[in-house]
């Protein structure tokens, strides 16, 4: 995979982050190239989700957080006081660990991001629904019942619906926070296949506990431990020739 020609798309520079008084991230520096998949791995509580949630400033919703350093997306600082968080989040889509469709129809779930942006053109919405559901690999399964409640779907379908919802407005970046944690192996496989498809259009950052999954579907991997990036590089290199003892311990299963 030739990633050399690609520009750096997301840059995390000396990023420190605190929940109240406890520091969760320490001097994070990361470089994410356009249209590549970065997998964040590491044991529970190492800060990978925190880092991910900073990429679209979801952590703003949490009380008493603060940070130092900066994250730059496509040349623009996320923490610039002039940034409109709402439009930032339109650029960075997110899929959560536990599927969380709205109590609406499948159709309305998908077009939500367009509706809140004030786009209500029927033809456009129909087209977006079809494209997003095809993109999320759900179209064939639900095309006859897009106006049914989203809660009529199975767990794996709901998670793919959430992906469809996230990609409906074509964000530049897609953040996935353990998207398969609540799914069975078959649904997981489908999502993984989907990620390979999505990579063609989106830059993806995925948090995963599943090392095989990380190895299978990412280009780059960053190993985080106790809020610090221990090792960051090509996925093959991290899994085959890790340089740090901690990485070796983690990958070989000494701790998790």
């Amino acid at each position, binding site marked *: 995979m030739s990633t050399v020609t690609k520009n750096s798309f997301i840059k995390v520079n000396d990023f420190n982050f605190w929940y109240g008084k406890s520091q969760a991230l320490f001097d994070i520096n990361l470089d994410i190239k356009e249209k590549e998949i970065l997998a964040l791995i590491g044991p529970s509580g190492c800060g990978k989700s925190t880092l991910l949630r900073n990429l679209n400033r*979801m952590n703003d*919703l949490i009380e008493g957080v603060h940070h130092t350093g900066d994250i730059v997306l496509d040349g623009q600082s996320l923490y610039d006081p002039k940034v409109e*968080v709402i439009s930032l989040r339109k650029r960075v889509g997110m899929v*959560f660990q536990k599927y969380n469709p709205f*109590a609406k129809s499948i159709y309305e779930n998908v077009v939500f991001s367009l509706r809140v942006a004030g786009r209500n053109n029927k033809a456009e919405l129909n087209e977006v629904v079809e494209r997003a559901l095809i993109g999320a690999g759900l179209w064939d399964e639900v095309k006859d019942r897009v106006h049914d409640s989203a809660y009529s779907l199975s767990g794996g379908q709901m998670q793919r619906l959430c992906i469809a*919802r996230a990609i409906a407005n074509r964000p530049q970046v897609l953040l996935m926070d353990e998207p398969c944690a609540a799914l069975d192996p078959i649904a997981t496989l489908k999502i993984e296949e989907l990620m390979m498809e999505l990579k063609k259009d989106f830059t993806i950052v995925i948090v995963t506990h599943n090392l095989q999954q990380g190895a299978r579907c990412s280009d780059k991997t960053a190993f985080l431990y106790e809020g610090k990036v221990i090792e960051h590089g090509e996925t093959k290199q991290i899994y085959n020739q890790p340089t740090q003892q901690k990485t070796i311990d983690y990958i070989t299963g000494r701790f998790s």
Partner: protein
Amino acid sequence: MSSSIKVPKRFIVSNKVLWFDRFMNWSIILGGILVMLAVFGIFVFILGEIVPLFKKAKVDLDNGVKIEALATKDMQAYPAIGVDEWGEMPFIYYGGKTIRFADITKGNQFTEVALPITEGQEVTSYNYNAVLNTMAIAQANGDFHILKVKHAVDFETGVRRLTPKVEKVFSGSLGAHPAQLMAFGLSDKEALIVAVMDVAGKQNVTAFYYKQSFGLMGGGGFKLKESIDMGNDLDGLEVSSLLVQQNAKGFLLGTQTGEILAFKLKSSKLVQTQRFHPFEKAITDGIRIDAVLGSDSIVVSDERGDQVGYSLYKQVGNSDRAYIQTKTFESFDHHVGFFSPSTRNKSFITGANDHVVIRYFTTEAQRWEAKLPYNVVATAIDDKAYYLFFLSDQGDLYRYELDDPHPEAGFKAFFGKVWYEGKSEPVYDWQSTGGSNEFESKLSLVPLFFGSIKGTFYSLIFAIPIALLAAIYSASFLDPRVKKVVKPTMEIMASLPSVVLGFLAALWLAPIIEHKVPSIILVIVGWPLLSILFGFVWFYFVPIQVRNKLNGWEWLVLVPFMMFVAWALWSLGGVWEQSAFIVQQYNVLDAQGQVVQNIIGRHEALEFIKMSQVVNPDVQLTMVHLGEAITTTGVKMADFSLWWTREMGWGNYDQRNSLVVGFMMGFAVIPIIFTISEDALSNVPTSLKSASAALGATRWQTVRTVVMPIASAGIFSAIMIGFGRAVGETMIVVMATGNTPIMEWNIFNGMRTLSANIAVELPEAAKQSTHYRALFLGAFLLFVLTFIVNTIAEVLRQHLRNKYKLV
């Protein structure tokens, strides 16, 4: 059995744990059952209090007491019978020199009491008034006597002993002619005696007006003031019945052809006020006119057994009251032969031959009905209404126990429109108690129910928007650190004693509002509009850096701004009043352009003209063009309440009104709706809020499209609980509504709610009385109202919950 299997000790739960578990289980079950029993018990108690209201009267016909041959069979057609207040010593009079008393306890032993009347003269006419216990007797030489029948009580023998007595109140002369008919009205100060006399084969009606002179030593006896001979006024009509109003203010003549002539005593002159036919069909045998308790209502019966009720009512535009038919009773199909009014309420016993009924005048209700095995010629009822007495045409007297504690009650009395004495039309009215027995209690619960709804409505339209918006703001916009302070504060507000709120409303808020209505209107309308404007300015003109910085703290800017706006609008109200709410003085002119009257307020002036036309139809011609008849005098003043009432005529303006209640009860309800709906909004899963935020929705979009639908069931509950609180709220409405049971939606007058009514009147209601039970009926109505509303609410809530159910 299992005892053979050895269970390792570590798997055995200790008995202590098991017993405690069982104990707690049963305690909780017991608690639940007790709660249900308590609610059920309250329900049963209330039901027990109100059921007797809807029971008919009962007369124990099987266990009567019979006194044989109290009268001889040749008695006159209308013997007078009466009774003492215990129903023990009835008496009869049908002419002659003595009254015959019987003692129920002793059987057929009679006591004859001699009457203090003129010796040697035949009695030609007599009339007994059971309410006054007074008899009038006219003799052949024209003498008449007003006699009081008394039952003197003593306890000398250890038990109650009654001694019959007849005392003379006063005597006089009707002239030289014997009276065919005579009747009297008697009050402390005056007496009116009317006699129909036979003067050379022609009827002559003469009224004698007596006045009691009062000296330092008390009453000085009745003196004749006026005797008015109305011989020629009768136009050759033949008088068949005569009724003098009990208060001696006037009298009625019934003619052989069924006409009624009403006369009124006006400054010592008799004026014929009315002449009418109470029955449409032709009458040949005369009509009966009888009075129910009081001086305002009469019952007229005819030869066919038809019976109707007439009451004095206030005519539009006329201060004189006139009789109008307000009641129609069921017909007897026979000549109505007897009539006795109750001396404690508006019921009366009447009937024809063996058919006897008890009716209640106000509600037209038939309280009791029976066919007796004998024909009745006269009836009586004791003062306590414990016994009924019937005199048969054989001269036997029967006494039966009567059980009718709530004659004035009934479905119509509580929920129907009733035409009360003195009212100009049938109305819903609540006025439970009056100064005397003669008072007609008005027990309609409709105005109270209306008051409850009105108070609730005005408080909820004030409280719901504020509480809901506040809850949304607190749940989804406000910085969590501030929310931690705001929410408990609101919860404390919910526990503010309502008596404090009521006190504030009545003594502090109401006087302020009274003079500041335009300011309040401005604030109510201007505040939301300006806060929306503030939102626009904030979004479009305030730099993004500032807005990002104040995320969740916007109120720091908004609150001072709104305070300033409130102050500015409040001050502007006065200016607005000066320019918009002007009351002018108007001249009302007649056809010649002469000023008839000057009146403040356009509506009042128009009303005056309307009234004048009713009173004097001649004026009508000159007042056709109402607009032209009015010119302003140029006198103006600016005052909202006068403008509202006199200029526009939109109803009264009371200081303690629905606006005040709306505000204060709103304050009682806001914390409840706020707290519950805030919880509902906050309990919407964060994952959904995050998903919405991650998709680029604004906070408001998230609330509107994601949070609100899910929280809708909870918000709905909050509103319903607020409704329940407002309906049941008592202290605030007692103190701040004026408690007037009127039925108008006018926001500037008060109301009387069911709950306030109970609080105000229960202390003065005699236990087990109709009034007392009517208050419980009000409580029951509240119970039912909340029950129905809560049921509907619960059904809707379940529906919402299913619609927006989460996975």
